[in-house]
């Protein structure tokens, strides 16, 4: 088993570019996730323009106390450029007659939200749809790349099959289980370790990455397991390395987008949405989301179990298929 593992490391060393490219992709994905989350997470910055030392009404004081907005009280209307620069998301001007005008360059939905908040500042809470937090976003963005890396690094296994090396190995005393385990372990570690290291470096640099590193270790482990199982599963069907590689990448991109790794596509529980739960990516991200929000329930755990179960199914099929190439006596 170690022989196969070491041999794959040697082979990878001859193709270092793969490792470099995947590391870069991973860093880009994580950075994008962090940047996008930061943007989504920002509270609304409001400028409250109260001219002529007017006393704040009760309503306006209540708005200032609302936790969903940062309210800055100004005496004069700020320049439009402050809106363009996103210093403020909206400017609320209180006129002498007590009416207010809202100026924003953001979308109408945002304007409506500020209006609602102004109308009922105490009871206001923003639309309670599940906004993802940093950790969920990072894993959502990483997921597709991790799954694709599985297919990428399974190419050594695919090459063994394509170039009949597996038959030569099968003639040696190496047991089949050890052979496949060697490949599986290689794929698993080469996916899990570098991406975990990238997150570790980010954490050391003081960047908020959502989860603690041990939790990430576990979650990345689950993803790496799924990626390894899927990659071995897919490659066990094809004799030609490139076919599995291309097909696998296509499947992963499509299903990851459908499963909403990046953004949740649909908010309602339509039939289509329910079908999407067949995709392990969706179940995984839902679990992570619940974990980060602290709203774990039995059904979210069931989703995690589903991810393990489908990985197990992939592995079993991969083993059964490959065994045919390996064992006869």
């Amino acid at each position, binding site marked *: 088993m170690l*022989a196969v593992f*070491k041999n794959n490391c*040697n*082979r990878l060393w*001859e193709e270092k570019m793969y490792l470099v490219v995947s590391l870069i992709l991973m860093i880009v994905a994580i950075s994008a996730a962090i940047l996008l989350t930061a943007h989504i997470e920002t509270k609304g910055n409001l400028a409250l323009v109260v001219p002529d030392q007017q006393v704040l009404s009760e309503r306006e004081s209540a708005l200032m106390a609302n936790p969903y907005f940062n309210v800055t009280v100004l005496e004069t209307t700020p320049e439009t450029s402050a809106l363009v620069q996103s210093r403020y998301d909206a400017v609320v001007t209180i006129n002498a007659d007590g009416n207010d005008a809202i100026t924003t360059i953001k979308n109408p939905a945002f304007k409506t939200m500020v209006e609602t908040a102004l109308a009922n500042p105490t009871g206001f809470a923003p639309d309670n749809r599940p906004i993802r937090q940093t950790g969920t976003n990072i894993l959502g963005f990483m997921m597709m790349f991790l799954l694709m890396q599985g297919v990428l690094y399974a190419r050594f296994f695919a090459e063994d099959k394509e*170039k009949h*090396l597996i*038959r*030569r190995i099968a003639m040696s*005393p190496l047991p089949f289980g050890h052979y496949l385990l060697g490949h599986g372990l290689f794929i698993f570690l080469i996916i899990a370790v570098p991406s975990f290291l990238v997150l570790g470096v980010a954490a050391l640099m003081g960047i908020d990455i959502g989860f603690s590193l041990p939790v990430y270790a576990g979650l990345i482990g689950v993803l790496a397991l799924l990626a390894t199982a899927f990659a071995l599963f897919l490659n066990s069907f094809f004799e030609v390395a490139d076919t599995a590689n291309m097909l696998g990448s296509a499947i992963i991109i499509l299903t990851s987008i459908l499963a909403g790794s990046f953004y949740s596509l649909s908010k309602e529980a339509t039939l289509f949405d329910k079908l999407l739960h067949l995709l392990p990516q969706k179940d995984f991200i839902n679990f992570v989301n619940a974990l980060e929000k602290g709203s774990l329930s039995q059904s979210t755990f069931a989703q995690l179990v589903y991810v393990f179960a489908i990985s197990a199914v992939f592995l079993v099929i991969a083993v059964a298929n490959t065994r045919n190439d390996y064992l006869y006596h």
Partner: protein
Amino acid sequence: MNAIVSVNQLKKSYNQKPVVREISFAVQKGEILCLLGPNGAGKSTTINMLCGILGYDGGEMSYRGENISSCLNRFKRNLGVVPQDLAIYEDLSAEQNVRFFASLYGLKGRELEEKVSKALDFSGLQESRKDRAKTFSGGMKRRLNIACAIAHEPELLIMDEPTVGIDPQSRNHILSSIKKLSQHGMTILYTTHYMEEVEEISTRILIMDSGTIIAEGTKESLKEDIFDERQFIMEIEEDQCLNVDEFYKIEGIKKVEKQAQTLTITTLKNIENLDKIIALVITSKTKIRNLFCRTASLENVFLRLTGKSLRD
């Protein structure tokens, strides 16, 4: 009995088409057994079944008298296989290739390194051991293919057409290394469709055609058994006195041809008549400068057995 491996009534069909038809043979310790047959005869199929990478439809195989399935691991440990298709890692160096395959046989540490180096030396690849296999010529790749199979010093080495498509120099290197391995006590099962190789290295031959073993023996015995005639070729000094027709009076003579200074006499093998032939030439006052006896080639043997030529 000294059989390392014996095969009994082994058969295999693809889509009802028999490819190997109940063949039986044994590989004896220390021999170089050549399995000779044209492309498609079923040689590789037989080898692959023996090595455990292809299922079979019937028959038995045993290793040192024990059924192979029940001692598979021990059998595999003592087996080295050079597959017909190159099976090496093109992106890795020669040394990494040999080291990997040798390590599959449980070799480790110093012993591993020593045996890897020995195998590379043996295959004449020591100088290019750090080079990637993909930079190698066809002949070097073939030699590496062999090195990967011998580093663990197997008791039985099976080589499936290890010389197809390579330059004569590499081929000679390979053939002489096989003889060397044999001298060191390795038992070898060698498949080929090249007669010359069989003539050069074999200690025993199995001739295979259309999934059947049609003849077995040493190269001498095969020729002896199959042909009942032989040819004497005499180089003579030109002499008008020699009357070719006179030869037909000698018992067993089948054909006599005279071309310039060469006299070719075909005669039945089992009749001792060389003395009479020579006496006739001498009494004709003709000087014999040279005399040799030509027996059939394996090519003739194959032609006689199957009615077709070994070459396609």
